[in-house]
């Protein structure tokens, strides 16, 4: 830490004040990787035990953003903890951000202002309440080509760090611009603020996972729609109150009001499992969930419900050992969706395991509740690159996670209109009326041809007249008078939709279909 403490009292000779073209955050490559995986630019609490000292710890709860140029001392601090750290400057595009922030002026004063209107050229550092969504990142700047290559190789060791989504720049000069500025700024008193991360992180995983599941049926699509837009009112969920309570849970940041017993029970487990990720106690998520079932509060639950929780806890413990039961036998004894979801939760560990699991007794609702529990356990950071590849998913989720965090923290920060909810091909190709639109038909035909599905038919519309059917050595020939224009090749919609429900379509075909449909790729 620098000992110079008067540098905020005067304008440095190497600084030229100009309008802010972009806001810069200084960090190191490991923290950056973590933030990419977590989907949020966030404070140290979000890193578990893997936070390396950088600029985000200087003012707890705030992100320190430099206008245009960064201080070299901030760069040095950000790689001071380990020799293997690589400095990175993250450029942010804040055009959609608005709300109360703090600025530290050239005179070393802290001012409460509203961004963007009240941030002027006196700002040397802006403190924005964390988190910000990763889709605000306009570029990642490296000191050298070697640093960039090193980071790319490093990122390849992890299953959830995708650097390819970000513009990379090599700008050595950017790392040494403000040579005389100390870091952190001295004699600056900013009261810390607390940032809730558990619910946003779980919410991100719920969105991502439900979207990846939405070829399973209409209920999954409705649940996914609710996850992305918790204020929505979806009649499809009317018969599924526990799933429908997700909207309230997301909006209230982990609490639900006017809930019935099942809703309280299920979302109580989800809240505790999500919070356990950020707890110093390293008890496993399964232990946390079962402990909740065993010790349900008499304030919230009646005796009958507590009895149910205790019995379920005993059964769940049994199946983790030498129980003499198959999963089908367990499901037969436990027909309720919450029980079945908990059974899967204790018997399967990873999201991939859940996605592969099938059992004829399992309903779509059971599966959705299990997916929510798994999401709470893993968080968005636990979703692998493969599950995040869904077109438009990353931007849509990271924006919403940050938005939920600010809503819970009541920071009054507005992040702007969220990116549109990504949709699966099943949704995009489902006809709004009785039949597909022209553009949907075109996309469907493309899929059927590419995947060689036997659901294509060719229709020839003929007017009234005489037609001659002739048999030649080459086969049968239909001879028509005049010029026939109405030859239509199309998919048989019912067969096509049935195949689409049961096929995972990714990569080139998915991208091309979205091009045809003119939606986000």
């Amino acid at each position, binding site marked *: 830490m620098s000992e110079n403490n008067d540098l905020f009292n005067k304008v440095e000779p190497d600084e030229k004040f100009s309008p802010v073209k972009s806001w810069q955050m200084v960090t190191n490559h490991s923290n950056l990787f973590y933030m990419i995986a977590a989907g949020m630019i966030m404070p140290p609490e979000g890193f578990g035990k893997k936070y390396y000292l950088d600029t985000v710890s200087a003012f707890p709860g705030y992100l320190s953003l430099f206008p245009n140029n960064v201080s070299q001392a901030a760069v040095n601090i950000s790689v001071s903890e380990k020799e293997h750290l690589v400095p990175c400057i993250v450029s942010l595009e804040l055009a959609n951000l608005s709300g109360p922030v703090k600025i530290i002026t050239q005179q070393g004063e802290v001012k409460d202002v509203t961004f963007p209107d009240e941030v002027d050229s006196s700002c040397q550092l802006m403190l924005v309440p964390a988190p910000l969504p990763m889709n605000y990142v306009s570029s990642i700047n490296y000191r050298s080509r070697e640093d960039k290559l090193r980071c790319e190789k490093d990122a390849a*060791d992890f299953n*959830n760090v995708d650097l390819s989504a970000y513009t990379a720049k090599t700008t050595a000069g950017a790392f040494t611009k403000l040579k005389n500025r100390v870091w952190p700024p001295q004699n600056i008193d900013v009261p810390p603020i607390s940032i809730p991360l558990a619910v946003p992180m779980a919410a991100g995983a719920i969105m991502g996972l439900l979207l990846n599941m939405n070829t399973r049926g209409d209920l999954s699509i409705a649940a996914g729609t609710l996850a992305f837009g918790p204020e929505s009112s979806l009649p499809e969920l009317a018969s599924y109150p526990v799933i429908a309570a997700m909207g309230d849970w997301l909006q209230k940041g982990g609490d639900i009001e006017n809930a019935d017993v099942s809703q309280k029970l299920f979302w109580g487990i989800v809240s505790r499992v999500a919070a356990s990720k950020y707890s110093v106690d390293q008890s496993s998520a399964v232990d946390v969930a079962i402990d909740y079932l065993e010790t349900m509060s008499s304030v919230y639950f009646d005796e009958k419900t507590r009895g149910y929780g205790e019995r379920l806890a005993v059964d769940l413990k049994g199946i983790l050992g*030498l129980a003499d039961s198959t999963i089908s036998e367990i499901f037969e004894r436990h027909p309720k969706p919450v029980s079945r979801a908990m059974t899967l939760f204790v018997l399967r560990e990873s999201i991939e395991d859940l996605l592969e699991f099938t059992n004829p007794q399992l309903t779509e609702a059971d599966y959705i509740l299990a997916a929510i529990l798994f999401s709470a356990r893993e968080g968005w950071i636990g979703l692998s690159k493969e599950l995040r590849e869904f077109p438009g998913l990353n931007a849509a989720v990271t924006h919403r996670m940050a938005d939920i965090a600010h809503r819970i923290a009541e920071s009054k920060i507005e992040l702007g209109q969220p990116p549109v909810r990504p949709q699966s091909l099943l949704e995009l190709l489902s006809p709004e009326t009785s039949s597909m639109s022209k553009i949907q038909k075109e996309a469907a035909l493309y899929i059927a041809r590419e995947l060689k599905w036997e659901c294509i038919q060719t229709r020839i519309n003929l007017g009234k007249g005489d037609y001659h059917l002739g048999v030649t050595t080459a086969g049968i020939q239909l001879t028509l008078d005049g010029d026939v224009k109405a030859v239509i090749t199309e998919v048989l919609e019912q067969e096509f939709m049935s195949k689409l429900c049961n096929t995972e379509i990714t990569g080139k075909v998915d991208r091309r279909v979205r091009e045809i449909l003119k939606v986000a790729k």
Partner: protein
Amino acid sequence: MTKRRFQLPGIQDLSKEQEDVRALPMEGQHLIVGGPGTGKSILALLRARRLAQEGAQYVFLVYNHLLNESSKQLLDEDLISKQWQSWFMGLYRDIFKKSVPKLPPTGGSSWQDIDWGSVLESISTIEPELADLPTLVIDEGQDMPPEFYQALVNMGFENFFVMADQNQQIQEGLNSTRRDIETALALETDDVIELKNNYRNKHPVARLAREFYTGDPASPPPALPTATIRSVKIPLCYEYDIEQIGRLMGSLLKMADRDPSKLIGIFTYNNEDRMQYYNGLLNCNVRLDNQKPIVRTFSNSEKNAISFDEGGILVINAQACKGLEFDTVFIADVNHFNCSDHNKDNARRLFYVMIARAIDRVILLKQRGMHCPADSILPVDASILERK
């Protein structure tokens, strides 16, 4: 059967101390010491994978045939992996155009150890090769003798990435200490990276393993994760009636059936027990949701192919479990393990190794009413080992 594959870690899965290892330069001599579950094997696999991606020559050396198979099968990419003795004998043959010298067999066994004295003498007659030698990534490096490292250095090998844990030695006297490896690789003690935290074993497993730690200060036991809620997966010592062994087999199969991707290890004291469990499981028929789990066994003499890239049940002798990783470990039957007074430390070391193989759950099987010398080393605290 459901596939099990090596999965790249998430950024959140590697700790700072593990990152220190991952960031070590691709060249040079590196020794990483840590107890079971500290992530040595995954770091070694990541290093091999990175070397392959960079087009560097490397060989991944492991202690035994089973480890070689499991490493190869778990990594999706082609892994140049060898059992260390086979690899060394091939290398020696290539250089000297003759077989590696061996000591006469001892103790009625046909096994012949490498005559390291003669090997080192032969190597001293040649000029060290300085070009085109691969980087050696060595897992369970404590299991190779000090002369092995000496021979490699004398041959001109320069790039080493060695993972070791002194407390996992099963055959005392035939292995290298941390100091031996440091000396051979000319490393200062400060150059050695110690991995101190257990990431593999769930807390209850790690807690039980700690009961059997024999206290070698050169390689301290991994720190325990902190957990305040009593776990639902406390290790269990399960007593069964020998007449009901068929029911026990059924329960084992149902456990495997509840998650076919999981690998269950049954570690036995001797071949007789091994075959009893293996045959018992093969011949047991119970109603299951999925196809009957694959039940496999392995012995050094048979060297039959073992698949580690799918779930099921693997029945092996305790001595063969080193370095392997299972979701659930059964130790069967604990009654038969030799825990006489003069053998207690060896028994503790063996239990330490066996228990630390488990990621998630440990269950000790014990025949009811039979004498059980291992009782003298099993913890009595029910919060560490439950009894049923």
